[in-house]
């Protein structure tokens, strides 16, 4: 294997990759924030005792858990505009796809955290004369939050990986920018290897942080 590596082209267009990296971080952060909002709403509906709220929320979650993200991306970009009669740009469609999908997963994280709190805690709080709201705020949610952290960060990590799919809609994130650099330099080996390395650095930092947080939490309680 006598392949001559040549990174000069990539270095010349390095700023294009940096723009892509910025695009990846931007779409990830926005989708995580919106995903949390969607997730909280869906989790509240899912925990409700009214079947008219609970069932649709369950269906929403199951739909997103059982279909591939790339279908959502294409659906929001090509299909939804027909229904709402407004054209979506790649960024908006990608954010919609990512935040509704992660919302479905976050909803399960939030619900799982609340449900995991033992019955005794509810009963104890009731015995102290607390009403539902007080129990939630003072007893259940603070304990549940700690249990949610690890799966929440894990989900956000998965979401960050999924942002690469926005390249299929021509949103200027890291992979899409790399494709552009490749079409100028004709150096797929160097370009795609560099992109893999950049993603690795970004994601490995995240997963290392994730493990640290998990370790800290498991020590605390």
């Amino acid at each position: 294997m006598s392949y001559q590596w040549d990174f000069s082209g990539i270095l010349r267009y390095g700023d294009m990759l940096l723009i892509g990296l910025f695009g990846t971080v931007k779409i990830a952060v926005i989708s995580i924030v919106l995903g949390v909002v969607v997730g909280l709403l869906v989790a509240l509906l899912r925990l409700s005792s009214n079947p008219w709220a609970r069932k649709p929320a369950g269906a929403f979650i199951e739909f997103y858990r059982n279909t591939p993200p790339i279908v959502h991306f294409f659906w929001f970009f090509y299909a939804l505009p027909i229904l709402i009669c407004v054209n979506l740009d790649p960024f908006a469609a990608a954010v919609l796809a990512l935040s509704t999908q992660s919302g479905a997963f976050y909803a399960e994280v939030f619900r799982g955290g609340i449900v995991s709190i033992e019955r005794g805690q509810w009963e104890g709080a009731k015995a102290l004369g607390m009403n539902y709201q007080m129990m939630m705020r003072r007893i259940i949610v603070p304990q549940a939050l700690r249990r949610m952290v690890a799966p929440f960060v894990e989900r956000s990590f998965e979401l960050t990986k999924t942002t690469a799919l926005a390249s299929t809609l021509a949103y200027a994130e890291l992979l899409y920018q790399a494709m552009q650099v490749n079409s100028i330099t004709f150096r797929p080996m160097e370009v795609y290897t560099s992109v893999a390395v950049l993603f690795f650095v970004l994601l490995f930092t995240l997963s290392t942080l994730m493990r640290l947080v998990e370790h800290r939490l498991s020590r605390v309680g």
Partner: protein
Amino acid sequence: MEYTWDFGVVLANFPVLLRGVLLTLELWAIALALGLALGLGLGLARVSRRAWLNGTAIAYVEIFRNTPVLVQLIWFFFAFPIILGHQLTPFAAAVLGLTLNTSAYCAEIFRGGIQSIARGQWEGARALGMTYAMAMRRIVLPQVLKRMLPAFTNRGIELAKVTSLASVLAVHEVMYQGRLLSSTFYRPLEVLSVVAFIYFLLIYPGSYLSARLERRLATRD
């Protein structure tokens, strides 16, 4: 909303989608079988006491888990042939990428399972005069496999979703066929919705099974 739905196009071209479904299943089955086999090897390397073997397996797993699958697929299709010296077909590149990716996750499942076996089992096997390989094959792995079944079912579900990314390499699986139909007949809303529904039909039985399995194993322990 004045839009009139028309599924005529989808019905008339259903064989096209069906052919895509078959290729999706083929991709899934091959990648899962090869990924499990390779994952077992990597999992064994992960619990090995030889530092170089262990280190290599860790690096492999971390690389594949900390980069987006789409980047891996694109790397294997556009970059890898350059060092390989001959072009890969889209299907071969997709199988390669999906197999290696899924094997990294399987390796972690095997490792977790093997490490969850109580020390006493190893000691008992050694007391009976078994070698490491014998103890692994006769004592540890048979117990581990049952315990890991839910995790493997989940992996199978994730893999089924990830096969849709092969459409980016122009593998004619169901997502690709859907994109083809929707751009040919300009009916993205109907076609993409049907594609999403097809994926749901393919994947939901798996996740239903996995949830039941998890519950059953949880009550038995």
